[in-house]
């Protein structure tokens, strides 16, 4: 066996070498879409290096902001169109655009430059993969059908066509999945092109029960191809980024690139982390354990619900504690006060139990204990709306999450009325928002209603800029803005240092 292995290794290495040499040929871009499997080889100037990266970053940041705002794919596409034209145009082959090569080269190179900047930590890699996937998806959807199919064929995804006979056999099951898009004029089971793939290749379709799956094979209609391509794009990029991360130390030696890369990654600030340090800056506010009850009038509904549940039950379950502790940290409650707050809130518990079960976790959140990286980064970041909306939906007896999303209409109305929001127009608006899954809109609508006088005054007097009054996408921003508005007279005018950078 060993001998065979050794032999094989040689052969593979040999092929690899040939392949590697081939990539040093001048690059061609026969397709508009790119899976970025081949690294760039030509030289570019340092100015191009930086400018291309910044342009792409601008696009990615904007895409991320769209997702934080919960924009629909159509809204996102409309929002992005002019920006893409300006910063990262990419025309179809059939357009015969004179800059076709230049466009594709810039797209190709800028992607790889940002890989270098964003491969260093797992968190950056995850976000980069996410936004790059969004960009790819956007372009994939907008691509010319013929060109897109030609591109997909180059990917060599192994899809097995479903025979006419099998289609007939499984007609009932397949029909059940065809009907899901709910449109009239759908192709019938027989008209539709089906392919069979291992279910692991289309987890997104499985997750939402969009396809029929039998003994491990998913039956995917042609219109769902995109899901398979996206999964492939994602997994290839993830793997490539890990390889980049391992190669990164060698790059440090090039001291011309390091400052640029560092600068790039700093500009890609996580909206989640923006509140760790800056927001304790509300001057004159008494952010202390004993004042939380009073301050809670400025909390968004998600946090008010947690606070009320905590007061009612003298306990919260773990995701609730997590979400709330991070929020309190974000409003500027320091570690000592936070410990006091939880200690006094868990009033049915002995000191001993509190110390054993909870003290450590609160300290960990604040970066007071834990591993080096935790302490260096000051612990965990308060959750953004995006995170609260999408991760860990609350189950039985849990109070975390976003009430606009996770409550049913009746309970949500009861909650809102419970905090004194009785205006019929506002409540109807919230119901509509909820139905359209515009949970941010609902939350912002409530904010506007509760602060309508102050907002008007702030605008009139120019106390706050329009940028400071744009859609809230973070519970801590909600608190901060609410507090500032309600205490306008008492607090000196301050710059909005708590704004989410990526949203600009």
């Amino acid at each position, binding site marked *: 066996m060993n001998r*065979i292995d050794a032999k094989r290794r040689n052969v593979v290495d040999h092929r690899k070498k040939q392949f590697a040499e081939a990539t040093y040929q001048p690059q061609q871009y026969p397709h508009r879409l790119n899976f970025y499997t081949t690294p760039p080889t030509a030289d570019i100037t340092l100015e191009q290096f930086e400018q291309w990266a910044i342009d792409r970053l601008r696009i990615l940041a904007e895409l991320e902001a769209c997702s934080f705002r919960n924009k629909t794919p159509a809204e996102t596409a409309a929002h992005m169109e002019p920006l893409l034209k300006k910063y990262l145009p990419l025309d179809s082959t059939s357009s015969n655009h004179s800059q076709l090569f230049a466009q594709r080269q810039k797209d190709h190179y800028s992607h790889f430059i940002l890989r270098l900047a964003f491969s260093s930590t797992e968190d950056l890699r995850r976000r980069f993969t996410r936004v790059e996937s969004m960009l790819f998806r956007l372009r994939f959807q907008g691509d010319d059908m013929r060109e897109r199919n030609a591109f997909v064929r180059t990917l060599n995804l192994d899809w097995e066509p479903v025979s006419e006979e099998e289609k007939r056999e499984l007609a009932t099951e397949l029909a*059940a*999945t065809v009907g899901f898009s709910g449109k009239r004029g759908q192709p019938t089971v027989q008209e539709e092109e089906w392919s069979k793939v291992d279910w692991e290749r289309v987890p997104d379709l499985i997750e939402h*029960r969009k396809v029929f799956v039998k003994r491990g094979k998913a039956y995917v209609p042609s219109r769902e191809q995109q899901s398979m391509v996206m999964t492939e794009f994602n997994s290839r990029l993830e793997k490539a980024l890990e390889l980049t991360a391992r190669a990164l130390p060698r790059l440090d030696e090039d001291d011309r690139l390091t400052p640029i890369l560092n600068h790039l990654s700093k500009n890609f600030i996580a909206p989640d982390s923006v509140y760790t340090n800056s927001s304790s800056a509300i001057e004159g506010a008494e952010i202390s354990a004993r004042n939380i009850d009073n301050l809670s009038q400025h909390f968004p509904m998600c946090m008010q619900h947690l606070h009320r549940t905590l007061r009612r039950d003298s306990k919260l379950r773990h995701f609730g504690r997590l979400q709330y502790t991070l929020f309190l940290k974000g409003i500027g409650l320091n570690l000592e006060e936070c410990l006091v707050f939880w200690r006094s809130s868990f009033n*049915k518990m002995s000191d001993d139990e509190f*110390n054993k079960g909870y003290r450590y976790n609160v300290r960990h959140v604040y970066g007071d204990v834990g*591993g080096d990286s935790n302490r260096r980064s000051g612990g965990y970041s308060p959750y953004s709306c995006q995170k609260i909306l999408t991760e860990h939906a609350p189950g*039985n007896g849990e109070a975390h999450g976003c009430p606009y999303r996770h409550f049913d209409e009746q309970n949500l109305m009861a909650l809102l009325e419970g905090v004194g929001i009785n205006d019929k127009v506002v409540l109807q608006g919230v119901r509509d928002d909820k139905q359209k899954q515009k949970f941010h809109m609902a939350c912002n609508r409530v904010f506007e209603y509760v602060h309508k006088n102050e907002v008007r005054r702030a605008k009139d007097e120019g106390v706050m800029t329009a940028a400071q009054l744009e859609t809230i996408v973070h519970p801590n921003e909600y608190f901060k803005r609410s507090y500032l508005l309600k205490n306008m007279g008492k607090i000196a005018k301050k710059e909005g240092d708590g704004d989410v950078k990526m949203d600009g």
Partner: protein
Amino acid sequence: MPHSESTPEQQEAPARTQLTPTMEDTTLNLGNGGLTDEDLLMADVEDVESPPVVAPAAAIEPPSSAPTTKPASPEEDAPVDIKQETKSEVKLEDLFEGMDSDSDDEFSSKNNNNKDVITGQIPPSSPGPAAPAGSNPDLLRVFYQLLFPWRYYFQWLNHSPQPTPDFKFREFSLWLTGGVVFRFQSYATLDLLRKDVFKHLPERIEIGPIYTANPRDRKTFRNSSAFRPIAKELCFDIDLTDYDDVRTCCDKATICIKCWQFITMAIKVLDVALREDFGYEHIMWVYSGRRGAHAWVCDRKARNLDDHKRKALGNYFSVVKGGEKTGKRVNIRRPLHPHLARSLDILKEHFLTDVLEAQDPWREEDRAEKLLQLLPDIKLRQALKEKWEANPGRSSTAKWGDIDSVAKSIPSVNAKDLLEAKQDIVLEYTYPRLDILVTEQRTHLLKSPFVVHPGTGRVCVPIDTNDLEGFDPLDVPTIGGLVNEIDSDSSGMVKKEGEDEDKKGADWERTSIKPYIDQFRGFVHGLLREEREFVRVKREREEEEGKLDF
């Protein structure tokens, strides 16, 4: 010859010769002192090289309901300096998870059910009523030495006769009486695992993932990609506390055969879907010792799934969403996905007998209100409400029948809407409710099969899916009962002493745990057969490829 058809396994024979002579000593020791707790526990703790520790489980529950025999608490918060022990990449969610104070999941690492928490250092000489059998060190010693199916256990996790990374790099965590937890333990051989278990006599053992490297060395890896989980059985966890809003017979930690049917129907639905939809074959269902069941899907393909795909699978099986505040908890598209159509077919019968008849969930007026909220058409709701108010105490079965009969007289009712609403209700009351994190995360620890539930003393035995209706959780062997069986039996066995060990057979064969171990053995053999086949095909393919290269 019970073991003759199994694959050879090197450590079994010497270990057994050690075990048997100690049996009598052990049984004599019952109720008779012997080692003190300090000998068993505290002294050994020192021996473990930098034992990773999570905060003590015993420390978390509010005192209101805790046992009155509170231990003298150690001077320090935790027996080991937690700060020093926490890995740098520890996830905050995980930390909080381990700390849940009112978790309704007794088995994942976040367990803290009151009755499971053993706060006292119970002197072995006086196992009074405060000492549940499931954590009595003397009973545990007999159990682990004579009743635990080590050989099959090893084969199950190792997938091969010789120790492979599947076993060596697997995380075990040992939960000791008193709340000390050793996480990230791993063992190069079965013998080492067994020795460690005999030494610590954990009241429970949890199984984690197989890592890229030895879990004990995890701190030597600087980045998380070098030390990461790569495989784990695909697991499902169903717990009756998640059914508290639909069961009327019991609540919290209590169960009876009536509400156990919720688990039975859940197993039916999941088992057939895992086989028919996903093509898995090696699925073991295990009673969790009190009020739930775990599935271990052991097919190679399932073991290698990453978290993203596990999440997709978990959500495929997630139909009843949200909690008490969510209102209508089932919202599914029509036409019904084939999986849901099949599930509904299975569940309809159970709904009529095990829910409507056995649980009678809508007999009281306020509970019937919940049913009304799930129905379409305000006129229908009004008419039913009036009818039921006029007939207080009307049974749930009758009320369910009323829906269709009353609807006939109300022209505004849309028949299709009503049918769909009724289907949704059936699913809301019967479709499996999963603890999704157990399925989604490879790193999630799950209680091992065949350990003893510390609160009930019942053994976590496999459930025979061919006879689901015949399984009664209250009939499952308990550690106390099993040790008694050995005790009374071993006196009779004295005559046979001197006989060949093999002829005498293993001790468990003479107890009521036998059918469960037999079942486990059959399961493991099926799994190993497929593993051998996989290795053979792989070798052939490699040889083919090798030939091409020459």
